[in-house]
């Protein structure tokens, strides 16, 4: 037992380094993907048919393509189209697209939950469609969608482990290379698993709390 703890102590710095990369990947994917998701959610109810269809197509691609395939496509596929990105940038690009696809659906649900009477009142007051979205619909829609967005953020954090397949040095990849050097895969994977849980469990609790608080307010 003490042997295991000593080894864990030795491995921990490298795994924490990997964890930081995983968190950075998650943050970057959410920061790019959620605004893109919001734009797609708004465009998917555009009055211009071509715009609406383009947005819906992007959403379906983002949602329908497995994250692993998206990663492989961006990292291995795009260079043959003349665009090579580093592993980290590829991972951010791929996970952002997936995030955009999923969160646009989540946000669309939130936007649609804003009572039509408020939009109508804003129109009757003479507010433009744009101002109505900006000041009335989007702030409330995002707030309604917040718990689901947080739930999704936890999923995308877990999905960062897939980026080890395109050699991003995140938590799982650090664990594998330690495993390869020591042949103690199980021990190191358990520690890596605990580190994932150390993020996802508090994040899950926070999500539940947010959900309760928002439902109390509305």
């Amino acid at each position: 037992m003490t042997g295991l703890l000593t080894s864990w102590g030795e491995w921990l710095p490298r795994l924490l380094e990997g964890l930081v990369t995983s968190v950075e990947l998650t943050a970057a994917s959410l920061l790019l993907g959620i605004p893109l998701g919001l734009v797609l959610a708004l465009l998917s109810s555009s009055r211009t048919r071509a715009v609406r269809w383009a947005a819906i197509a992007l959403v379906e691609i983002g949602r329908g393509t497995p994250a692993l395939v998206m990663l492989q496509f961006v990292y291995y596929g795009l260079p043959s189209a003349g665009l090579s990105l580093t592993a980290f940038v590829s991972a951010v690009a791929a996970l952002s697209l997936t995030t955009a696809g999923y969160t646009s659906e989540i946000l669309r649900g939130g936007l649609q939950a804003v009572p039509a009477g408020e939009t109508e009142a804003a129109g009757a007051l003479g507010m433009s469609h744009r101002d109505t979205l900006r000041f009335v619909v989007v702030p409330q829609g995002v707030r309604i969608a917040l718990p689901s967005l947080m739930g999704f953020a936890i999923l995308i954090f877990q999905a960062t482990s897939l980026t080890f397949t395109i050699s991003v040095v995140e938590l799982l990849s650090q664990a594998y290379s330690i495993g390869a050097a020591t042949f103690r895969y199980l021990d190191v994977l358990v520690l890596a698993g605990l580190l994932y849980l150390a993020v996802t469990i508090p994040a899950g609790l926070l999500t539940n709390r947010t959900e309760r608080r928002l439902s109390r307010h509305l």
Partner: protein
Amino acid sequence: MSAVAQEPAVVLDRIHKQFGDLVVVRDVSLTVARGEVVAIIGPSGSGKSTLLRCINLLERADSGRVEVVGRAVEPGAGVAGRDLAALRRSVGMVFQSFNLFPHMTVLRNVSLPQERVLGRSRAEADARSRQLLERVGLAAKADTYPSRCSGGQQQRVAIARALALDPEVMLFDEPTSALDPELGLEVLAVMRELAADGMTMVVVTHEIHFAADVADRVVVMADGAVLEEGTPEQVLRSPSTERARRFLSAVVDR
């Protein structure tokens, strides 16, 4: 009636509106003079709300002409953005369900449209908002959220929000129907004052007392058409059609 100016505030000319095959408003014409208060009553489903919403183009009439303070549009032939904006600016509307923005304080609810629609600065808008909140008896509620206000208070905020844009005509669609009677009274009191101050008002209502006391003219609608119209005494005391008589006896006895 004596203070009413000559140019009409609202002219509806042969307004026709249908949803699919359902004809909801059939060739209704109605003129509202400046400063006049018109009450529209009638059984539910008779097209009162739809007619009212045709005035500020929340519903686009299929045919007919809508004229507000001299500016005319024919919704069936399309409405230019500029005309829509001008029309909405001169017409305020109060809904049965208040429709305040729940994520904003009472003050922001009243100030935001002024800033966005009239281009007032935050300070100007807030000053005007506070003045109007004072007028509807809610100065103390400025910094609270709508969910912390009673229905009657929310409706008075909604009135202040519409008035803040200095409309020339105010439309009310059953403003007290969602309220307990005593809360409805607060709202009716504000509306009485507004009428006394000379505001042009078109009010869809089930409040027969309000119609009798405040309206210059009462319009009875049934099945998408105007059944009867005249002064409150004429219409409420001695309706000329059997249909209007039946409707009135039902609401007066309630």
